[in-house]
Protein backbone atom coordinates (compact mmCIF):
# COMPACT_ATOMS: atom_id res chain seq x y z
CA UNK A 1 0.00 0.00 0.00
CA UNK A 2 1.24 3.47 -0.93
CA UNK A 3 0.29 6.38 1.28
CA UNK A 4 0.63 9.86 -0.21
CA UNK A 5 2.00 12.85 1.72
CA UNK A 6 -0.29 13.86 4.54
CA UNK A 7 -0.07 15.47 7.99
CA UNK A 8 1.77 13.53 10.70
CA UNK A 9 3.72 13.99 13.91
CA UNK A 10 6.69 11.94 15.03
CA UNK A 11 6.02 10.66 18.56
CA UNK A 12 9.35 9.02 19.09
CA UNK A 13 12.38 7.87 17.18
CA UNK A 14 15.06 5.35 17.90
CA UNK A 15 18.14 4.20 16.01
CA UNK A 16 17.68 1.23 13.72
CA UNK A 17 20.63 -0.67 12.31
CA UNK A 18 23.61 1.48 11.38
CA UNK A 19 22.15 4.44 9.54
CA UNK A 20 18.37 4.21 9.85
CA UNK A 21 15.69 5.28 12.27
CA UNK A 22 12.51 3.65 13.47
CA UNK A 23 9.93 6.35 13.92
CA UNK A 24 6.65 6.13 15.80
CA UNK A 25 4.20 8.31 13.94
CA UNK A 26 0.77 9.75 14.66
CA UNK A 27 -0.83 10.31 11.27
CA UNK A 28 -4.06 12.09 10.55
CA UNK A 29 -5.56 9.43 8.29
CA UNK A 30 -3.92 6.17 9.36
CA UNK A 31 -3.56 6.54 13.11
CA UNK A 32 -0.42 5.49 14.89
CA UNK A 33 2.18 3.48 13.01
CA UNK A 34 5.86 2.61 12.90
CA UNK A 35 8.00 3.51 9.90
CA UNK A 36 11.61 2.80 8.95
CA UNK A 37 13.40 5.92 7.78
CA UNK A 38 16.21 4.40 5.75
CA UNK A 39 19.49 6.24 5.90
CA UNK A 40 17.99 8.99 8.09
CA UNK A 41 20.95 8.88 10.48
CA UNK A 42 23.51 9.50 7.77
CA UNK A 43 25.45 12.70 8.24
CA UNK A 44 24.00 14.42 5.22
CA UNK A 45 20.50 13.00 5.29
CA UNK A 46 18.00 15.80 4.70
CA UNK A 47 15.53 13.86 6.86
CA UNK A 48 17.82 13.83 9.86
CA UNK A 49 16.81 17.25 11.23
CA UNK A 50 13.18 16.82 10.21
CA UNK A 51 12.14 13.61 11.90
CA UNK A 52 11.93 15.10 15.38
CA UNK A 53 8.90 15.04 17.65
CA UNK A 54 6.61 18.08 18.13
CA UNK A 55 6.90 19.48 14.62
CA UNK A 56 4.10 19.04 12.13
CA UNK A 57 5.33 17.16 9.07
CA UNK A 58 3.98 15.74 5.85
CA UNK A 59 5.05 12.15 5.38
CA UNK A 60 4.55 9.55 2.67
CA UNK A 61 5.29 5.86 3.02
CA UNK A 62 4.73 2.39 1.65
CA UNK A 63 3.29 -0.33 3.80
CA UNK A 64 3.75 -4.01 3.10
CA UNK A 65 3.54 -5.39 6.60
CA UNK A 66 3.02 -3.97 10.09
CA UNK A 67 6.14 -1.89 9.51
CA UNK A 68 6.11 0.80 6.81
CA UNK A 69 8.96 2.44 4.92
CA UNK A 70 9.17 6.21 4.84
CA UNK A 71 9.46 7.49 1.28
CA UNK A 72 9.17 11.27 1.64
CA UNK A 73 9.19 13.84 4.42
CA UNK A 74 8.80 17.58 4.52
CA UNK A 75 8.11 20.17 7.22
CA UNK A 76 4.52 21.39 7.36
CA UNK A 77 5.12 23.99 10.03
CA UNK A 78 7.92 25.75 11.88
CA UNK A 79 9.61 24.13 14.88
CA UNK A 80 7.47 25.08 17.91
CA UNK A 81 9.32 27.14 20.49
CA UNK A 82 8.72 25.27 23.74
CA UNK A 83 9.72 25.82 27.31
CA UNK A 84 11.04 23.00 29.47
CA UNK A 85 7.53 22.40 30.83
CA UNK A 86 6.18 22.28 27.29
CA UNK A 87 8.72 19.68 26.18
CA UNK A 88 8.21 17.53 29.27
CA UNK A 89 4.42 17.68 28.84
CA UNK A 90 4.83 16.72 25.20
CA UNK A 91 6.86 13.67 26.28
CA UNK A 92 3.92 12.77 28.49
CA UNK A 93 1.42 13.10 25.63
CA UNK A 94 3.60 11.03 23.34
CA UNK A 95 4.05 8.35 25.95
CA UNK A 96 0.27 8.24 26.50
CA UNK A 97 -0.38 7.88 22.78
CA UNK A 98 2.25 5.19 22.39
CA UNK A 99 0.90 3.24 25.33
CA UNK A 100 -2.81 3.59 24.54
CA UNK A 101 -3.30 3.76 20.78
CA UNK A 102 -3.40 0.59 18.72
CA UNK A 103 -1.50 0.71 15.48
CA UNK A 104 -3.29 1.44 12.20
CA UNK A 105 -6.52 2.69 13.75
CA UNK A 106 -7.40 6.10 12.30
CA UNK A 107 -8.30 8.81 14.86
CA UNK A 108 -8.69 12.04 12.87
CA UNK A 109 -10.32 13.86 15.83
CA UNK A 110 -7.48 12.86 18.10
CA UNK A 111 -4.99 14.10 15.54
CA UNK A 112 -6.52 17.57 15.58
CA UNK A 113 -6.73 17.47 19.39
CA UNK A 114 -3.01 16.64 19.44
CA UNK A 115 -2.23 19.51 17.07
CA UNK A 116 -4.12 21.99 19.25
CA UNK A 117 -2.56 20.82 22.52
CA UNK A 118 0.95 21.20 21.05
CA UNK A 119 0.04 24.77 20.16
CA UNK A 120 -1.31 25.30 23.69
CA UNK A 121 1.87 23.91 25.26
CA UNK A 122 4.01 26.60 23.68
CA UNK A 123 2.12 29.09 25.87
CA UNK A 124 2.66 28.34 29.56
CA UNK A 125 -0.68 29.83 30.68
CA UNK A 126 -3.51 27.36 30.35
CA UNK A 127 -1.25 24.39 29.56
CA UNK A 128 -2.61 22.35 32.47
CA UNK A 129 -6.25 22.84 31.45
CA UNK A 130 -5.31 21.99 27.86
CA UNK A 131 -3.69 18.74 29.03
CA UNK A 132 -6.91 17.68 30.82
CA UNK A 133 -8.98 18.48 27.72
CA UNK A 134 -6.63 16.41 25.59
CA UNK A 135 -6.89 13.49 28.02
CA UNK A 136 -10.67 13.74 27.88
CA UNK A 137 -10.62 13.70 24.07
CA UNK A 138 -8.11 10.85 24.08
CA UNK A 139 -10.43 8.72 26.23
CA UNK A 140 -13.30 9.56 23.90
CA UNK A 141 -11.23 8.62 20.86
CA UNK A 142 -10.30 5.29 22.48
CA UNK A 143 -13.97 4.53 23.10
CA UNK A 144 -13.80 5.14 26.86
CA UNK A 145 -15.42 8.59 26.81
CA UNK A 146 -16.34 9.97 30.25
CA UNK A 147 -19.94 10.68 31.23
CA UNK A 148 -19.93 14.37 32.11
CA UNK A 149 -23.47 15.62 31.61
CA UNK A 150 -25.81 13.63 33.85
CA UNK A 151 -26.09 11.70 37.09
CA UNK A 152 -25.84 8.05 36.00
CA UNK A 153 -28.22 6.85 38.74
CA UNK A 154 -30.92 9.53 38.65
CA UNK A 155 -30.48 10.72 35.04
CA UNK A 156 -30.66 14.35 36.22
CA UNK A 157 -28.42 16.99 34.65
CA UNK A 158 -25.29 17.83 36.68
CA UNK A 159 -25.62 20.88 38.91
CA UNK A 160 -22.52 23.03 39.33
CA UNK A 161 -23.29 23.72 43.01
CA UNK A 162 -23.59 20.01 43.90
CA UNK A 163 -21.02 17.44 44.87
CA UNK A 164 -20.78 14.07 43.14
CA UNK A 165 -18.95 10.79 43.27
CA UNK A 166 -17.42 9.66 39.98
CA UNK A 167 -18.04 5.91 39.76
CA UNK A 168 -15.09 4.71 37.66
CA UNK A 169 -17.20 2.10 35.91
CA UNK A 170 -20.27 4.20 35.22
CA UNK A 171 -19.93 7.94 35.73
CA UNK A 172 -20.92 10.72 38.14
CA UNK A 173 -23.68 10.24 40.71
CA UNK A 174 -24.83 11.59 44.03
CA UNK A 175 -25.84 8.13 45.17
CA UNK A 176 -23.00 5.70 44.40
CA UNK A 177 -23.62 1.94 44.42
CA UNK A 178 -22.26 0.25 47.53
CA UNK A 179 -18.73 -0.99 46.97
CA UNK A 180 -18.20 1.00 43.74
CA UNK A 181 -14.76 2.61 43.27
CA UNK A 182 -15.47 6.34 43.27
CA UNK A 183 -13.72 9.71 43.29
CA UNK A 184 -15.37 12.70 44.97
CA UNK A 185 -15.68 15.59 42.53
CA UNK A 186 -17.68 18.80 42.40
CA UNK A 187 -20.37 19.54 39.83
CA UNK A 188 -18.61 22.69 38.73
CA UNK A 189 -15.52 20.70 37.71
CA UNK A 190 -17.57 18.11 35.83
CA UNK A 191 -19.43 20.82 33.93
CA UNK A 192 -16.24 22.73 33.16
CA UNK A 193 -14.53 19.56 31.92
CA UNK A 194 -17.55 18.82 29.76
CA UNK A 195 -17.47 22.29 28.24
CA UNK A 196 -13.64 22.14 28.05
CA UNK A 197 -13.20 25.35 30.02
CA UNK A 198 -11.46 24.32 33.26
CA UNK A 199 -10.19 27.19 35.39
CA UNK A 200 -9.00 27.82 38.92
CA UNK A 201 -7.07 25.58 41.27
CA UNK A 202 -10.00 23.49 42.54
CA UNK A 203 -11.24 22.52 39.08
CA UNK A 204 -7.72 21.80 37.83
CA UNK A 205 -6.76 19.64 40.77
CA UNK A 206 -10.06 17.71 40.81
CA UNK A 207 -9.91 17.15 37.05
CA UNK A 208 -6.29 16.01 37.31
CA UNK A 209 -7.17 13.47 39.98
CA UNK A 210 -10.09 12.12 37.96
CA UNK A 211 -8.08 11.86 34.74
CA UNK A 212 -5.10 10.29 36.43
CA UNK A 213 -7.26 7.59 37.98
CA UNK A 214 -9.25 6.87 34.82
CA UNK A 215 -6.14 6.80 32.60
CA UNK A 216 -4.47 4.59 35.18
CA UNK A 217 -7.17 1.96 34.60
CA UNK A 218 -6.15 1.77 30.94
CA UNK A 219 -2.41 2.20 31.37
CA UNK A 220 -1.94 -0.71 33.74
CA UNK A 221 0.64 -1.05 36.47
CA UNK A 222 3.71 0.22 34.61
CA UNK A 223 4.27 3.86 35.60
CA UNK A 224 4.71 6.58 32.97
CA UNK A 225 8.41 7.50 32.77
CA UNK A 226 7.62 10.97 31.45
CA UNK A 227 5.50 11.73 34.52
CA UNK A 228 8.35 10.56 36.75
CA UNK A 229 10.79 12.81 34.86
CA UNK A 230 8.46 15.79 35.22
CA UNK A 231 8.14 15.18 38.95
CA UNK A 232 11.95 15.14 39.34
CA UNK A 233 12.27 18.25 37.20
CA UNK A 234 9.79 20.14 39.37
CA UNK A 235 11.58 19.06 42.54
CA UNK A 236 14.91 20.30 41.09
CA UNK A 237 13.27 23.61 40.35
CA UNK A 238 11.71 23.91 43.79
CA UNK A 239 15.03 23.25 45.46
CA UNK A 240 16.38 26.25 43.57
Amino acid at each position, binding site marked *: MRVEMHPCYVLHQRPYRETSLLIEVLSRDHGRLTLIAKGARRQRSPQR*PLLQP*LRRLNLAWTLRSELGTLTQAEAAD*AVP*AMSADGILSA*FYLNELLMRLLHRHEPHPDLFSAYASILAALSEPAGAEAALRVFEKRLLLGLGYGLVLDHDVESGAALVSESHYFYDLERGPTKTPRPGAQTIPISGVTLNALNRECLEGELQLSEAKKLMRTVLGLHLGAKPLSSRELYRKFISERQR*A
Partner: protein
Amino acid sequence: MFEDHSRLEVLIDALRRLPGIGRKSAQRIAFFLLQRDRDGARLLATALVDAVENIGHCRRCRTFSEESLCRICANPKRDRSLLCVVESPADVVAVEEAGFRGTYFVLMGHLSPLDGIGPEDLQLDSLESLLGEGEVKEVILATGMTVEGEATAHYISEMVKKRNLRATRIAHGVPVGGDLEYVDSGTLSHALTGRREV
Protein backbone atom coordinates in the same frame (compact mmCIF):
# COMPACT_ATOMS: atom_id res chain seq x y z
CA MET B 1 28.37 -23.65 6.50
CA PHE B 2 30.91 -24.25 9.25
CA GLU B 3 30.55 -26.45 12.28
CA ASP B 4 28.47 -24.70 14.86
CA HIS B 5 31.05 -24.01 17.51
CA SER B 6 34.12 -24.09 15.29
CA ARG B 7 36.69 -21.42 16.05
CA LEU B 8 35.93 -19.76 12.74
CA GLU B 9 32.25 -19.53 13.58
CA VAL B 10 33.05 -18.06 17.00
CA LEU B 11 35.29 -15.44 15.34
CA ILE B 12 32.61 -14.49 12.79
CA ASP B 13 30.01 -14.16 15.52
CA ALA B 14 32.36 -12.00 17.57
CA LEU B 15 33.07 -9.70 14.61
CA ARG B 16 29.36 -9.19 14.08
CA ARG B 17 29.25 -7.33 17.36
CA LEU B 18 31.00 -4.42 15.68
CA PRO B 19 28.66 -1.64 14.60
CA GLY B 20 27.71 -1.84 10.93
CA ILE B 21 29.08 -5.37 10.50
CA GLY B 22 26.63 -7.97 9.28
CA ARG B 23 27.24 -11.64 8.68
CA LYS B 24 28.77 -11.26 5.20
CA SER B 25 31.22 -8.56 6.25
CA ALA B 26 32.15 -10.47 9.40
CA GLN B 27 32.98 -13.48 7.29
CA ARG B 28 35.03 -11.37 4.86
CA ILE B 29 37.01 -9.81 7.73
CA ALA B 30 37.62 -13.20 9.35
CA PHE B 31 38.93 -14.69 6.09
CA PHE B 32 41.05 -11.63 5.40
CA LEU B 33 42.71 -11.77 8.81
CA LEU B 34 43.38 -15.51 8.61
CA GLN B 35 44.59 -15.53 5.01
CA ARG B 36 46.51 -12.30 4.69
CA ASP B 37 47.23 -10.65 8.01
CA ARG B 38 47.71 -12.95 10.95
CA ASP B 39 50.08 -10.46 12.59
CA GLY B 40 47.47 -7.75 12.24
CA ALA B 41 44.93 -10.08 13.83
CA ARG B 42 47.21 -10.67 16.84
CA LEU B 43 47.76 -6.94 17.16
CA LEU B 44 44.01 -6.32 17.06
CA ALA B 45 43.38 -9.02 19.65
CA THR B 46 45.92 -7.70 22.15
CA ALA B 47 44.84 -4.08 21.56
CA LEU B 48 41.22 -5.00 22.26
CA VAL B 49 41.99 -6.91 25.44
CA ASP B 50 44.34 -4.18 26.61
CA ALA B 51 41.78 -1.44 25.96
CA VAL B 52 38.92 -3.27 27.62
CA GLU B 53 40.99 -4.01 30.71
CA ASN B 54 42.66 -0.66 31.08
CA ILE B 55 40.28 2.02 29.87
CA GLY B 56 37.77 3.18 32.43
CA HIS B 57 35.97 6.43 33.11
CA CYS B 58 37.49 9.69 34.34
CA ARG B 59 36.26 10.31 37.88
CA ARG B 60 35.64 13.99 37.19
CA CYS B 61 34.12 14.15 33.70
CA ARG B 62 33.33 10.46 33.10
CA THR B 63 34.80 10.31 29.62
CA PHE B 64 36.95 7.32 28.69
CA SER B 65 40.31 7.43 30.38
CA GLU B 66 43.17 5.15 31.35
CA GLU B 67 43.95 7.16 34.45
CA SER B 68 41.48 7.96 37.19
CA LEU B 69 41.61 11.54 35.93
CA CYS B 70 41.58 12.06 32.15
CA ARG B 71 44.20 14.17 30.36
CA ILE B 72 41.89 17.15 30.02
CA CYS B 73 40.77 17.16 33.65
CA ALA B 74 44.34 16.66 34.85
CA ASN B 75 45.71 19.53 32.73
CA PRO B 76 46.36 22.54 35.03
CA LYS B 77 46.15 24.91 32.05
CA ARG B 78 42.49 24.12 31.39
CA ASP B 79 39.91 26.59 32.65
CA ARG B 80 38.08 24.73 35.39
CA SER B 81 35.51 27.48 35.83
CA LEU B 82 34.01 26.57 32.44
CA LEU B 83 32.25 23.21 32.24
CA CYS B 84 30.91 21.97 28.93
CA VAL B 85 28.23 19.27 29.28
CA VAL B 86 28.07 16.88 26.31
CA GLU B 87 26.28 13.63 25.54
CA SER B 88 29.19 11.41 24.48
CA PRO B 89 33.00 11.08 24.38
CA ALA B 90 32.75 11.68 20.60
CA ASP B 91 31.26 15.09 21.38
CA VAL B 92 34.31 15.88 23.54
CA VAL B 93 36.52 15.24 20.51
CA ALA B 94 34.34 17.54 18.39
CA VAL B 95 34.30 20.38 20.93
CA GLU B 96 38.08 20.00 21.46
CA GLU B 97 38.58 20.49 17.72
CA ALA B 98 36.60 23.70 18.00
CA GLY B 99 39.29 24.99 20.37
CA PHE B 100 37.44 24.88 23.71
CA ARG B 101 39.76 25.45 26.68
CA GLY B 102 37.52 24.58 29.62
CA THR B 103 36.66 21.14 30.98
CA TYR B 104 33.84 18.67 30.31
CA PHE B 105 31.17 16.51 31.82
CA VAL B 106 30.10 13.57 29.66
CA LEU B 107 26.54 12.34 30.25
CA MET B 108 26.87 9.16 28.16
CA GLY B 109 23.36 9.72 26.80
CA HIS B 110 20.40 12.05 27.15
CA LEU B 111 17.11 12.09 29.01
CA SER B 112 14.60 10.05 27.06
CA PRO B 113 11.56 9.08 29.12
CA LEU B 114 10.05 7.11 26.24
CA ASP B 115 13.12 4.86 26.29
CA GLY B 116 13.03 4.79 30.08
CA ILE B 117 16.20 6.88 30.48
CA GLY B 118 15.91 9.20 33.45
CA PRO B 119 18.24 11.51 35.42
CA GLU B 120 19.64 8.61 37.47
CA ASP B 121 20.86 6.87 34.29
CA LEU B 122 22.97 9.91 33.38
CA GLN B 123 24.60 9.97 36.84
CA LEU B 124 23.57 13.55 37.34
CA ASP B 125 24.50 13.13 41.00
CA SER B 126 28.18 13.08 39.94
CA LEU B 127 27.55 16.31 38.06
CA GLU B 128 25.83 17.66 41.17
CA SER B 129 28.87 16.92 43.34
CA LEU B 130 31.21 18.37 40.70
CA LEU B 131 29.21 21.61 40.79
CA GLY B 132 29.31 21.43 44.57
CA GLU B 133 33.12 21.54 44.59
CA GLY B 134 32.85 25.24 43.78
CA GLU B 135 35.35 25.55 40.93
CA VAL B 136 32.78 25.71 38.13
CA LYS B 137 31.29 29.14 37.43
CA GLU B 138 29.58 28.56 34.09
CA VAL B 139 28.02 25.43 32.62
CA ILE B 140 27.78 25.31 28.85
CA LEU B 141 24.99 22.96 27.80
CA ALA B 142 26.17 21.33 24.60
CA THR B 143 23.68 18.48 24.38
CA GLY B 144 22.25 17.59 20.97
CA MET B 145 19.78 19.73 19.10
CA THR B 146 17.07 17.13 19.46
CA VAL B 147 13.96 17.24 21.61
CA GLU B 148 15.69 14.93 24.10
CA GLY B 149 18.84 17.05 24.02
CA GLU B 150 16.77 20.17 24.75
CA ALA B 151 14.98 18.46 27.64
CA THR B 152 18.33 17.35 29.06
CA ALA B 153 19.71 20.88 28.78
CA HIS B 154 16.66 22.33 30.56
CA TYR B 155 16.87 19.76 33.33
CA ILE B 156 20.56 20.40 33.99
CA SER B 157 20.07 24.16 33.77
CA GLU B 158 17.74 23.91 36.79
CA MET B 159 20.46 22.09 38.74
CA VAL B 160 22.96 24.76 37.75
CA LYS B 161 20.74 27.75 38.46
CA LYS B 162 19.83 26.65 41.94
CA ARG B 163 23.53 26.93 42.81
CA ASN B 164 23.51 30.47 41.43
CA LEU B 165 25.89 29.49 38.65
CA ARG B 166 25.60 30.58 35.05
CA ALA B 167 23.97 28.13 32.62
CA THR B 168 24.36 28.77 28.90
CA ARG B 169 23.18 26.82 25.86
CA ILE B 170 25.33 26.62 22.74
CA ALA B 171 23.95 28.64 19.83
CA HIS B 172 22.70 26.83 16.77
CA GLY B 173 22.59 28.13 13.27
CA VAL B 174 23.84 28.12 9.74
CA PRO B 175 26.97 25.99 9.14
CA VAL B 176 30.15 27.76 8.08
CA GLY B 177 30.28 27.83 4.28
CA GLY B 178 26.58 26.99 4.12
CA ASP B 179 24.18 28.52 1.65
CA LEU B 180 20.92 29.59 3.26
CA GLU B 181 18.81 27.93 0.61
CA TYR B 182 20.14 24.49 1.58
CA VAL B 183 19.82 24.93 5.33
CA ASP B 184 16.83 23.11 6.81
CA SER B 185 14.07 25.40 8.03
CA GLY B 186 14.38 24.27 11.67
CA THR B 187 18.03 25.30 11.84
CA LEU B 188 17.28 28.55 10.06
CA SER B 189 14.47 29.44 12.46
CA HIS B 190 16.83 28.85 15.42
CA ALA B 191 19.44 30.98 13.68
CA LEU B 192 16.89 33.77 13.32
CA THR B 193 15.75 33.63 16.95
CA GLY B 194 19.35 33.50 18.13
CA ARG B 195 20.47 36.45 15.95
CA ARG B 196 22.88 38.96 17.43
CA GLU B 197 23.90 42.57 17.01
CA VAL B 198 26.76 43.21 14.55
